[in-house]
């Protein structure tokens, strides 16, 4: 009689999505997005930071999330006027 493998619960995906290896991949992507950001406002470019967070989805899947952002006061004005972060995301395929 054929034996069917029991489906693993979705939360076990967290072993992969929350792993140090995945964090390395995500921070690499975030780093390349940050490196692609260019703007005439040097203070804005200097304020760009990348971060990774460990979060849990509504279904209980643990995962790593990468974030690229700039200093809030400079960042919001420059992003609204010229969209350098959005363009860097677009260029990276995001």
């Amino acid at each position: 009689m054929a034996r069917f493998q029991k489906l693993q619960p979705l939360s076990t995906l967290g072993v992969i999505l929350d792993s140090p290896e995945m964090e390395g991949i995500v921070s690499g992507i975030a780093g390349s997005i940050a490196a692609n950001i260019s703007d005439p406002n040097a203070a804005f470019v200097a304020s760009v930071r990348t971060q990774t967070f460990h979060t849990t989805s509504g279904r209980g899947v643990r995962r790593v999330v990468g974030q690229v952002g700039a200093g809030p006061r400079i960042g919001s004005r420059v992003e609204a006027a010229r969209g350098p972060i959005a363009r860097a995301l677009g260029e990276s395929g995001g």
Partner: protein
Amino acid sequence: MALLLERWGSLVVDVLFPIATGHVIGRLGDMLAARGESAAADVSVWRVLPPKGERSKRMVTVRDDGGPVEGVQSRRRLGFNVWAESSVKAERLALICMGLVGSMADGSPVTAVDSVSGPFEVLEASKDLLTVDGDTLAHYYFSARVSVRGSDL
């Protein structure tokens, strides 16, 4: 997945994509005009800010920040700047616009809207504040990724 997309991309070569902002500006203007609430009344939608003489108290601009082509779809990151007479009115208008953009996918040519982010208030330096008929306008911003379908070249 990357290999699959690469192969799929290489199969599709003769595709003409529409100007995403043109469609979004037209649809957003129509959808706002069709709403009865006061917060969405008398809104003009543009690609860039119009000259001073043509500005109104409630304006939205739609900017295309680009994005990748995946097969027959182009995924564009759009930035939406929203102005109104007060912070509350501008935020309300931005939220309405965000909802309308999120519901815009109809397949022709917008196939999907995701990564909607915002709105946040843009605190302008005093020299950058917009004034229309004596009112200083409040400014909000949000962004979204809009996918559009191409057609045969």
